[in-house]
């Protein structure tokens, strides 16, 4: 499906359906970008760029699956570029600290914050793989297509990422 969208087998888009795609997919794009980048400001920039590309190229989609796949791919690519351009320390600074999260009333929220903080420490490709597979719930094949890698690589990245996350979180908990 993604391949079909990328190979241009999809009919051209109209302005009306561009707005439709934006409305339907803005939350997906923003959420994915935020999970990968760790802050809303960067996520907004990425979301804007994703939809501007969509508008500029006038890419149409045969169905929702094709639209989702294309948007995931472009979102991840832009996030990877942006994350690589930044220094790792900058990403971690934006993640809420333990002191702030300790103020949170709900333990679950605290755990989520810690997990997101740990996620921000992973290499960006691993982070993207985890976000797409575990949070967005894509299949391994879909993640592989979005990242432009093989399913084996994706499985390996996710497995490594989970081990690293556990290590980071256990260190934090000590």
């Amino acid at each position, binding site marked *: 499906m993604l391949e079909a969208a990328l190979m241009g087998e999809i009919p051209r888009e109209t302005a009306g359906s561009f707005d439709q795609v934006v409305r339907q997919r803005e939350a997906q794009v*923003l959420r994915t970008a935020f999970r990968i980048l760790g802050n*809303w400001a960067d996520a907004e920039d990425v979301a*804007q760029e994703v*939809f501007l590309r969509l*508008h500029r190229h006038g890419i149409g989609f045969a169905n929702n699956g094709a639209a989702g796949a294309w948007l995931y791919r472009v979102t991840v690519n832009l996030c990877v570029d942006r994350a690589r351009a930044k220094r790792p320390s900058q990403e971690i600074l934006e993640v809420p600290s333990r002191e702030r999260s300790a103020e949170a009333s709900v333990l679950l929220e605290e755990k989520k914050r810690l997990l*997101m903080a740990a996620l921000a420490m992973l290499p960006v490709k691993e982070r993207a793989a985890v976000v797409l597979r575990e*949070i967005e719930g894509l299949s391994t094949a879909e993640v592989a297509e979005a990242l432009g890698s093989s399913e084996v690589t994706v499985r390996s990245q996710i497995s490594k990422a989970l081990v690293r996350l556990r290590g980071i979180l256990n260190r934090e908990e000590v």
Partner: protein
Amino acid sequence: MTEQEMRDLFREMRDEPVPADSLARVRARLANRAPRRHWWILVPAAAVALSIVSVVMFRPAPPPIPGPVIVAKTAPPPVKIAPVQIPPRPKRARPKPVAAVPVSMIRIETPDPEVVILLVN
């Protein structure tokens, strides 16, 4: 935190709402930078295209350009080639018949009646 706990937390994050102000900001930026394509924008462009087409189609015909002078080329008269005169083949002289020479023959008979000796010329 175990791997299963992490997976559960990730799953919970899946349905978390996106902040409304973030969505609004993205929409506003897109509205500024990706203007809608209104159909009426196409009207002046179509009018211009139509006028160009009509000018091209209905413009007066240009004066005829004198064509190249065609010089009638006539083929030169064919050269008359004299027919080849084949000289008559000289007739081979026939050998003249030899004049008849009178044949003289002497017949000598031998005692054997089966044997006769003939002496010609």
